[in-house]
Structures are given as C-alpha cells and as structure tokens.
C-alpha cells in the first residue's frame, strides 16, 4: 500500500525540514525565556506566560490570519522587509517557519519551565559560588540536570509542528516544496477525492504521533504538558 509519489516525498522532506528548524530555534529561544519565567520576579512574568500559552487556545486560523496581515507585503513586518530589499514572508518557507515557532512555543517553554522549577536555584547558586560563570553553569549543571525537560521540549515541539495545519494554510497556502507540508497535502488529497493517498499519509502521521507520545510518556511519568 505504501507507494508514495514524488509530491508525497517532497512534502515529507519539507515537513521534516520545517520541524527540525522549528525545534532548533525554539530550544534557543525557549531556554532563556523559560529560565526567566522560572527565576524572575518581574511583574511582566504572568503576562508573558499568558502570551506564550495563547496558541493553545486560539484557533490556528486566528494566529494565521494576523501573521498573514503582519508578514504579508502590506503588513508591518512584510513591508519593512521589502523596503530593505528582502521578500515579504507570506507564502514562503521562512514565513511558516516563523509561524511554527510561535505556534509550538508553549510546547517548548512549558516542559523547560517545569524542569527549571524542579531544579530550583540551589544547584546554580552552588556552581556559581564555586566559580562557574553563566555559560559554564548552563552546560555543567542546568543541561545535565534538566536533560529530561529538554528532550521532552524538543520532542513535543517537533511533533506539534508536524501536526500544524490551520496556521500554515492561512499564511503559507499550498506551494509545493515551499509551504505544502504533510498536513496540507493530506487536505489537498482529500479535496481531490484521492482517499488512498490521503489515507497513506494520515496513517503515517497517526503512527508517528503515537510513537512520540509513547516516548514522552515513558520518559517522564509526570507528563509535563498536563500543567499547561
């Protein structure tokens, strides 16, 4: 039954690429953000936490719509980019990458926040008193002690980006090789009454998602996202 055409392979490759870059960017952004949320006493903390969690409750179309407005040729970001000689971001890979980062943010921040809260301040204070600077402390204490949190954050970010549909459809459309990811391709197949093809890809995603969740649950008996 598995006879995937070139369009399918292209979508799979594009999806993996999108998920990979989203995960890398998210870990870079979410780590300091979660650290700030867990240790900061700023009064902006709650507001930032709410903003980060917004994609959980907003319909993806809302996020996609505003991103299209902002990143498109007439939007604030899009027009500034064009005036600097770049392309605007609507209907482009960079655009959906940007959207994915926002959309999966809570899935990266929350496990890290949980891990940092569990870690507490003490190990960091100890290592600082022993002469370790900020970067040194991160790699010699935080990373090894919060390994589980980082793995869960990465896995969930990746998996959640695979499942992204509404935002991409709004912002990216369905351009093969550029924005046509698996979820969009499945939609296209179904629209074209090509149920056999849609079924193949859907089953693949179903099995993949199950495996990811299985791994995450077995890694930590306390599933971090429960507290979202």
């Amino acid at each position, binding site marked *: 039954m598995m006879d995937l055409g070139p369009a399918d392979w292209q979508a799979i490759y594009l999806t993996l690429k999108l998920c990979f870059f989203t995960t890398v960017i998210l870990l870079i952004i979410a780590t300091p953000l979660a650290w700030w949320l867990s240790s900061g006493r700023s009064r902006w903390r709650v507001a930032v936490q709410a903003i980060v969690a917004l994609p959980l409750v907003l319909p993806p179309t809302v996020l996609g719509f505003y991103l299209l407005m902002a990143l498109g040729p007439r939007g604030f970001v899009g027009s500034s980019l064009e005036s600097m000689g770049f392309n605007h971001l609507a209907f482009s890979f960079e655009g959906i990458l940007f959207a994915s980062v926002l959309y999966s943010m809570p899935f990266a921040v929350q496990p890290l926040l949980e891990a940092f809260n569990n870690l507490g301040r*003490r*190990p960091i*204070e*100890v*290592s*600082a*008193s*022993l*002469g*370790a*600077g900020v970067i*040194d402390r991160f790699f*010699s*204490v935080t990373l*090894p*002690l919060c390994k589980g949190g980082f793995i869960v954050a990465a896995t969930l970010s990746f998996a959640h980006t695979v499942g992204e549909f509404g935002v991409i459809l709004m912002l990216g459309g369905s351009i093969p090789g550029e924005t046509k990811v698996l979820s969009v391709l499945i939609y296209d197949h179904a629209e074209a009454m090509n149920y056999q093809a849609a079924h193949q890809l859907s089953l693949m995603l179903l099995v993949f998602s199950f495996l990811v969740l299985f791994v995450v649950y077995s890694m930590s008996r306390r599933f971090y996202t429960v507290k979202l």
Partner: protein
Amino acid sequence: MSNETLRIKVRVPRGDFTLDVDTQWPLTGVTALFGRSGCGKTTLLRIIAGLEKVNAGRVSFAGADWQTAEMFLPIEKRRVGLVFQEASLLPHLSVTGNLLYGFKRTPEVLRRLQPDAVINMLGLENLLDRRVEQLSGGQAQRVALGRALLSSPQLLLLDEPLAALDTQTKREIMPFLSRLSRDSNVPIVLITHSPEEVQRLADRVVFMRDGVIDDICDLQQAMSRPDSPLFADEGPASVLTGPLSEADAQGVRRFGVEQAQLFVQTTSIAVSSDSPVTVTRLRVLARDVSVALDDPSRISIRNHLRVVIREIHELPDNRLLLSTTLADGQCLLIEITRWSAQQLNLQTGQEVWALIKSVALVQ
C-alpha cells in the same frame, strides 16, 4: 583597619520586616551570626555572597568593593565558599566530581589547598568513588565542606551547616568544622541559632534580632554577660582557651597555663592524633562548678582552681551566678544557690577555690 574587615551596609525592606545593617568585622577566625529564625541572618549571608542583589547596598571585603551603588561583583568572581543546611551536592556528579568542581575552576595561582590535604582533613578517603545519593547526611555535608574549601575561597559562608543533621552526626562533624577553621586559615561566617555551635566554633559573635544587629563582640565577652542569649539552651557556661598537652598513660591531658591548670580525660576520638592540638577550647557549665573556701584534698574532683570573685549576679529561683577570674585572667562562671553563698559568706573580691566537676573539650 578597614583593609582586613568585611563591611556591609544594607537596608532591605521586606514587607513588615526590614533588614537594616551597617557594620564591619575583622576577617579572622569564625564569626557567628546568631539569632532566631527569621531575624535576617540568611538574607545577610546571601547579600555577602552575592546571591541577593539589593538596591543601595554596599559590601566590601578586605578593602575590595563587592557591591556599591555603581557595581555588583557576581558571586562567581567573589570566591566565597558556600555550605548550606542541605549538602546540595550536584547529583549528576560523583563525590570526586563534586569535590573538584570548584578546584578545576580556580586558577592555579589562586589554589591554596590541594585535594589530598582537604580529603585528609575531612576524612573523605573512603567516599571518593561513591555516588552522591549513597552518602549519609553527615558524609554529604563533609563533601560539601570539602568542595567549598577546594575552590580556595577568600571567605567561607556556612548557613546552618549542622541544623539538618541528627545529634550523633553533628557530634561527628563538629570536630571537622573546628579543625577546618583552625587549619584552613580561611575566615568563616557561620550562621547558627545553636548556642552550642557558637560556643564550640565561634571566635566572634554577631547577635541579630528582627533585622538589626544588637551587638558584635568576641566570644569571651559574649559569654561574660549573665543574660547572654548563648545561655538559652544549657544555662550559663564558660569557654576557656589554652594549650593542651599530650595524653599520659591514663589518657589524661593537662590544659591551660601552670597557674590555672585543668586535667582533661580524653579519648582518642576527641582529639585527632594526626594534627597535634596546640591551642584548644574547653567548655565548663556554670552549674558543674562548686565553690570551696579552702583547697580540699580528699575529694574525687581533680580540677581545683584558685579564682577571684568579680561580680555576683542574681538568677531566678534563688540562684546566684558568680563571675570569677582565673589566675590567667580568663573568666569562669559559677552557679550556686543563694543559700550556699550565704553559708560561705561569699563577697566580691574574695579568693575562693572553684571545683570543676566536668569539662568538655570542644575543639
């Protein structure tokens, strides 16, 4: 003078409580921050360490600014050793990994203590290959002390390092702590609410109450006040310092100068043989001392000292506290009943014999 002191000036309002400190003390020996829970000791220690960044604070160490209105030296640059109530070992590292964490991060020129010496000083030889979670509370705390020492700190900050340990373990660790303060030559700030720890370890006491410092004085002074907060647990006591001789065949050592000599029965555990104790500290509870007008000879109490009564203080329940001085000038407190004082007709200025029933070697 200000070169060899720790200076702190902070004002930290925290709700209905304000830590308001403007003080300095010399950087020698052990300084105990003594006070009840919630009096601000820990906050003060965290400010000294650089763990708490407060506005308008000023901290300087031996003339070097650690914090002023314009600058804040981060903790990793202050070179302070920290030991908390919980050992707080890094669980992903072995005992050796923990011990060497700070050592590896200390530039070679600043290293003053070598791993072998510290491991020996704290008796860690048999623990090196263990995993952190295999250690008992007392062992973990010894590793934490060693880890802090091996970063060759300029100042050692101990935040109730014994409070989480049971009495037995405390007794095991205490000699290590006093040896550390004697042998490592690092000034120590010790937070404690235990009078016993102060009497055993401190050279200087900072009395704190409700966020302010009541008094700073050396231990002798702190223990010469009959109403000293240090007497809250076990009643008035005196701490005597002096040289301790080698043990004779029966395990008896002579303590102090010749005119005021005491005999101390010791076991090998109480005094470690590898570091010969030169100057040590004895603690005598005031209620373990009796007074005689003549030197009695046919009596089982071996320690008779000639003392002069300086002051007589009233205690509750018809008891009196005699503040006396030994031949070498040290202060000895004696607690007797008003009735026996009247029987003997004791007066200030009078010379009497103090009969000391028991002494405890505390260092």
